[in-house]
Protein backbone atom coordinates (compact mmCIF):
# COMPACT_ATOMS: atom_id res chain seq x y z
CA UNK A 1 0.00 0.00 0.00
CA UNK A 2 2.78 2.33 0.94
CA UNK A 3 4.65 1.56 -2.26
CA UNK A 4 1.54 2.32 -4.26
CA UNK A 5 1.19 5.68 -2.54
CA UNK A 6 4.82 6.48 -3.28
CA UNK A 7 4.29 5.57 -6.91
CA UNK A 8 1.19 7.76 -7.13
CA UNK A 9 3.04 10.71 -5.63
CA UNK A 10 5.92 10.16 -8.02
CA UNK A 11 3.57 10.04 -11.01
CA UNK A 12 1.73 13.17 -9.90
CA UNK A 13 5.01 15.05 -9.49
CA UNK A 14 6.11 13.83 -12.90
CA UNK A 15 2.91 14.99 -14.59
CA UNK A 16 2.86 18.32 -12.74
CA UNK A 17 6.53 18.86 -13.54
CA UNK A 18 5.97 18.05 -17.19
CA UNK A 19 2.87 20.22 -17.63
CA UNK A 20 3.84 23.27 -15.60
CA UNK A 21 7.48 23.01 -16.64
CA UNK A 22 6.57 22.99 -20.31
CA UNK A 23 4.25 25.99 -19.97
CA UNK A 24 6.86 27.92 -17.95
CA UNK A 25 9.57 27.15 -20.46
CA UNK A 26 7.44 28.13 -23.42
CA UNK A 27 6.43 31.41 -21.81
CA UNK A 28 9.99 32.13 -20.87
CA UNK A 29 11.26 31.50 -24.41
CA UNK A 30 8.52 33.71 -25.81
CA UNK A 31 9.33 36.44 -23.32
CA UNK A 32 13.05 36.16 -24.14
CA UNK A 33 12.42 36.46 -27.87
CA UNK A 34 10.29 39.57 -27.34
CA UNK A 35 12.79 41.31 -25.11
CA UNK A 36 15.70 40.34 -27.32
CA UNK A 37 13.93 41.95 -30.26
CA UNK A 38 13.51 45.11 -28.20
CA UNK A 39 17.25 45.49 -27.57
CA UNK A 40 18.31 44.56 -31.09
CA UNK A 41 19.80 48.01 -31.70
CA UNK A 42 22.42 47.49 -28.99
CA UNK A 43 25.93 46.55 -30.09
CA UNK A 44 26.91 43.67 -27.82
CA UNK A 45 30.41 42.26 -28.26
CA UNK A 46 32.88 40.11 -26.42
CA UNK A 47 35.80 42.18 -27.60
CA UNK A 48 38.09 43.85 -25.07
CA UNK A 49 38.34 47.08 -26.97
CA UNK A 50 35.39 49.37 -27.66
CA UNK A 51 34.08 48.60 -31.17
CA UNK A 52 32.54 51.64 -32.87
CA UNK A 53 33.23 53.69 -29.78
CA UNK A 54 34.46 57.15 -30.63
CA UNK A 55 35.48 60.02 -28.42
CA UNK A 56 33.67 59.35 -25.17
CA UNK A 57 30.93 61.76 -24.24
CA UNK A 58 30.42 60.05 -20.91
CA UNK A 59 32.40 57.45 -18.97
CA UNK A 60 31.94 53.79 -19.66
CA UNK A 61 30.35 51.77 -16.88
CA UNK A 62 30.14 48.17 -15.86
CA UNK A 63 26.83 46.35 -16.12
CA UNK A 64 25.75 42.97 -14.77
CA UNK A 65 22.89 40.51 -15.06
CA UNK A 66 22.01 37.44 -13.03
CA UNK A 67 19.61 34.59 -13.61
CA UNK A 68 18.94 31.33 -11.79
CA UNK A 69 16.75 28.91 -13.70
CA UNK A 70 15.47 25.80 -12.02
CA UNK A 71 14.90 22.41 -13.57
CA UNK A 72 11.52 20.73 -13.16
CA UNK A 73 10.75 17.26 -11.83
CA UNK A 74 10.22 15.79 -15.27
CA UNK A 75 13.46 17.18 -16.69
CA UNK A 76 15.42 15.98 -13.68
CA UNK A 77 13.87 12.55 -14.05
CA UNK A 78 14.74 12.33 -17.75
CA UNK A 79 18.28 13.42 -16.97
CA UNK A 80 18.61 10.72 -14.31
CA UNK A 81 17.58 8.12 -16.88
CA UNK A 82 19.97 9.66 -19.38
CA UNK A 83 22.81 9.36 -16.90
CA UNK A 84 22.45 5.58 -17.01
CA UNK A 85 22.86 5.44 -20.78
CA UNK A 86 25.08 8.48 -21.11
CA UNK A 87 25.05 10.98 -23.95
CA UNK A 88 23.58 14.37 -24.59
CA UNK A 89 21.26 15.76 -21.91
CA UNK A 90 18.97 17.88 -24.02
CA UNK A 91 16.65 18.86 -21.19
CA UNK A 92 19.53 20.50 -19.34
CA UNK A 93 20.85 22.16 -22.46
CA UNK A 94 17.71 24.23 -22.79
CA UNK A 95 18.02 25.13 -19.11
CA UNK A 96 21.56 26.44 -19.62
CA UNK A 97 20.65 28.44 -22.70
CA UNK A 98 17.63 29.98 -20.99
CA UNK A 99 19.69 31.06 -17.99
CA UNK A 100 22.41 32.47 -20.20
CA UNK A 101 20.02 34.41 -22.41
CA UNK A 102 18.15 35.78 -19.41
CA UNK A 103 21.33 36.95 -17.64
CA UNK A 104 22.69 38.50 -20.82
CA UNK A 105 19.39 40.22 -21.54
CA UNK A 106 19.20 41.70 -18.06
CA UNK A 107 22.70 43.07 -18.48
CA UNK A 108 21.89 44.63 -21.86
CA UNK A 109 18.61 46.03 -20.54
CA UNK A 110 20.47 47.62 -17.64
CA UNK A 111 22.89 49.26 -20.06
CA UNK A 112 19.99 50.50 -22.14
CA UNK A 113 18.10 51.91 -19.18
CA UNK A 114 21.23 53.87 -18.27
CA UNK A 115 21.28 55.41 -21.72
CA UNK A 116 24.14 53.45 -23.28
CA UNK A 117 23.86 51.88 -26.71
CA UNK A 118 26.68 49.33 -26.69
CA UNK A 119 28.20 46.73 -24.40
CA UNK A 120 31.66 45.25 -24.87
CA UNK A 121 33.83 42.70 -23.10
CA UNK A 122 30.86 40.51 -22.24
CA UNK A 123 31.77 37.63 -19.95
CA UNK A 124 29.46 34.83 -18.85
CA UNK A 125 30.21 32.88 -15.70
CA UNK A 126 28.46 30.06 -13.98
CA UNK A 127 27.32 31.20 -10.56
CA UNK A 128 27.21 28.43 -8.02
CA UNK A 129 24.71 28.39 -5.21
CA UNK A 130 25.27 25.48 -2.92
CA UNK A 131 25.22 22.10 -4.56
CA UNK A 132 23.66 23.30 -7.75
CA UNK A 133 23.47 20.84 -10.57
CA UNK A 134 24.00 17.74 -8.51
CA UNK A 135 21.51 15.70 -6.59
CA UNK A 136 23.63 15.36 -3.49
CA UNK A 137 21.55 15.09 -0.36
CA UNK A 138 17.90 16.03 -0.16
CA UNK A 139 18.73 19.73 -0.44
CA UNK A 140 20.33 19.36 -3.84
CA UNK A 141 18.50 21.67 -6.20
CA UNK A 142 18.99 21.22 -9.89
CA UNK A 143 19.45 24.67 -11.34
CA UNK A 144 21.65 26.81 -13.53
CA UNK A 145 22.92 30.13 -12.25
CA UNK A 146 24.59 32.49 -14.71
CA UNK A 147 26.20 35.86 -14.19
CA UNK A 148 26.87 38.12 -17.17
CA UNK A 149 29.22 41.09 -16.94
CA UNK A 150 30.18 43.71 -19.50
CA UNK A 151 31.16 47.32 -19.98
CA UNK A 152 28.51 49.68 -21.33
CA UNK A 153 29.52 52.66 -23.45
CA UNK A 154 28.17 55.01 -26.08
CA UNK A 155 28.95 54.53 -29.73
CA UNK A 156 30.47 57.32 -31.79
CA UNK A 157 27.89 59.80 -32.94
CA UNK A 158 25.72 59.29 -29.90
CA UNK A 159 24.09 62.24 -28.19
CA UNK A 160 26.85 64.46 -26.83
CA UNK A 161 26.89 66.00 -23.40
CA UNK A 162 28.82 64.88 -20.39
CA UNK A 163 26.78 62.87 -17.92
CA UNK A 164 27.96 62.20 -14.41
CA UNK A 165 29.54 58.77 -13.91
CA UNK A 166 27.05 56.17 -12.78
CA UNK A 167 28.13 53.80 -10.11
CA UNK A 168 27.55 50.14 -10.64
CA UNK A 169 25.53 49.63 -7.47
CA UNK A 170 23.19 52.51 -8.15
CA UNK A 171 21.77 50.97 -11.27
Amino acid at each position, binding site marked *: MEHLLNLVIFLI*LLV*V*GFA*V*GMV*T*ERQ*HLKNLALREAAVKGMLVTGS*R*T*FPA*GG*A*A*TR*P*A*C*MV*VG*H*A*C*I*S*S*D*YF*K*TFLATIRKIIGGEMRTYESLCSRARR*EAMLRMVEQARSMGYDAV*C*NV*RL*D*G*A*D*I*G*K*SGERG*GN*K*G*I*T*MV*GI*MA*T*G*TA*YNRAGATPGVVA*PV*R*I*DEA
Partner: protein
Amino acid sequence: MLVVNTEFIPGYQIQQMLGMVQGNTVRSKHVGRDIAASLKNIVGGELRGYTELLTEARREATERMLAQAKELGANAVLNVRYTTSSVTSGAAELYAYGTAALVVPEGQA
Protein backbone atom coordinates in the same frame (compact mmCIF):
# COMPACT_ATOMS: atom_id res chain seq x y z
CA MET B 1 34.25 55.72 -8.90
CA LEU B 2 34.51 54.41 -12.45
CA VAL B 3 34.09 50.67 -12.66
CA VAL B 4 34.65 48.78 -15.92
CA ASN B 5 35.73 45.30 -16.92
CA THR B 6 37.95 46.50 -19.75
CA GLU B 7 41.63 47.41 -19.51
CA PHE B 8 41.08 51.07 -20.25
CA ILE B 9 38.28 53.63 -20.34
CA PRO B 10 37.79 55.54 -23.58
CA GLY B 11 38.34 59.25 -23.08
CA TYR B 12 40.45 58.72 -19.97
CA GLN B 13 44.16 58.38 -19.41
CA ILE B 14 45.58 56.09 -16.79
CA GLN B 15 47.87 58.17 -14.64
CA GLN B 16 48.85 55.56 -12.14
CA MET B 17 48.09 51.90 -11.51
CA LEU B 18 47.57 51.34 -7.81
CA GLY B 19 47.45 47.58 -7.66
CA MET B 20 44.88 44.91 -7.24
CA VAL B 21 41.82 45.34 -5.05
CA GLN B 22 39.39 42.66 -4.00
CA GLY B 23 36.31 41.95 -2.01
CA ASN B 24 34.46 38.79 -1.12
CA THR B 25 31.35 37.70 0.69
CA VAL B 26 29.49 34.51 1.51
CA ARG B 27 25.74 34.91 1.78
CA SER B 28 22.68 32.76 2.11
CA LYS B 29 18.93 33.24 2.13
CA HIS B 30 16.66 32.27 4.98
CA VAL B 31 15.34 28.74 5.09
CA GLY B 32 11.95 29.75 3.65
CA ARG B 33 13.65 30.68 0.40
CA ASP B 34 15.39 27.31 0.30
CA ILE B 35 12.09 25.51 0.79
CA ALA B 36 10.48 27.64 -1.91
CA ALA B 37 13.38 26.81 -4.21
CA SER B 38 13.02 23.08 -3.68
CA LEU B 39 9.29 23.38 -4.45
CA LYS B 40 10.14 25.38 -7.56
CA ASN B 41 12.41 22.50 -8.50
CA ILE B 42 9.30 20.42 -9.20
CA VAL B 43 7.68 22.80 -11.65
CA GLY B 44 10.68 24.62 -13.06
CA GLY B 45 11.13 28.33 -13.70
CA GLU B 46 13.24 31.07 -12.25
CA LEU B 47 14.46 30.90 -8.68
CA ARG B 48 14.00 34.55 -7.79
CA GLY B 49 15.29 34.11 -4.27
CA TYR B 50 18.63 32.87 -5.56
CA THR B 51 18.85 35.49 -8.26
CA GLU B 52 18.34 38.07 -5.52
CA LEU B 53 20.99 36.33 -3.43
CA LEU B 54 23.50 36.69 -6.26
CA THR B 55 22.62 40.35 -6.75
CA GLU B 56 23.06 41.09 -3.05
CA ALA B 57 26.30 39.14 -2.84
CA ARG B 58 27.66 40.88 -5.90
CA ARG B 59 26.82 44.30 -4.47
CA GLU B 60 28.42 43.47 -1.15
CA ALA B 61 31.61 42.15 -2.76
CA THR B 62 31.77 45.16 -5.11
CA GLU B 63 31.24 47.51 -2.18
CA ARG B 64 34.17 45.97 -0.33
CA MET B 65 36.35 46.10 -3.41
CA LEU B 66 35.48 49.78 -3.95
CA ALA B 67 36.25 50.56 -0.31
CA GLN B 68 39.73 49.13 -0.79
CA ALA B 69 40.19 51.11 -3.97
CA LYS B 70 39.14 54.27 -2.16
CA GLU B 71 41.69 53.62 0.55
CA LEU B 72 44.39 53.46 -2.10
CA GLY B 73 43.25 56.80 -3.43
CA ALA B 74 41.97 55.44 -6.72
CA ASN B 75 39.14 56.92 -8.75
CA ALA B 76 38.62 53.95 -11.05
CA VAL B 77 38.70 50.17 -10.97
CA LEU B 78 39.63 48.49 -14.24
CA ASN B 79 39.40 44.92 -15.43
CA VAL B 80 36.86 43.85 -12.82
CA ARG B 81 36.15 40.11 -12.65
CA TYR B 82 33.73 38.12 -10.54
CA THR B 83 34.02 34.50 -9.56
CA THR B 84 31.73 32.36 -7.47
CA SER B 85 32.23 29.18 -5.57
CA SER B 86 29.83 27.03 -3.63
CA VAL B 87 30.61 26.68 0.04
CA THR B 88 27.60 24.85 1.37
CA SER B 89 24.13 24.14 0.09
CA GLY B 90 22.10 27.32 -0.40
CA ALA B 91 25.05 29.66 0.09
CA ALA B 92 27.17 31.46 -2.46
CA GLU B 93 30.62 32.93 -2.20
CA LEU B 94 31.19 35.84 -4.50
CA TYR B 95 34.62 37.23 -5.09
CA ALA B 96 35.21 40.48 -6.95
CA TYR B 97 38.63 41.64 -8.02
CA GLY B 98 40.05 44.34 -10.22
CA THR B 99 42.86 46.82 -10.67
CA ALA B 100 42.64 50.15 -8.89
CA ALA B 101 43.86 53.07 -10.93
CA LEU B 102 44.04 56.81 -10.98
CA VAL B 103 42.58 58.14 -14.23
CA VAL B 104 42.17 61.64 -15.64
CA PRO B 105 40.04 62.80 -18.58
CA GLU B 106 42.09 63.01 -21.77
CA GLY B 107 43.69 66.38 -22.36
CA GLN B 108 43.83 67.22 -18.68
CA ALA B 109 46.88 65.15 -17.86
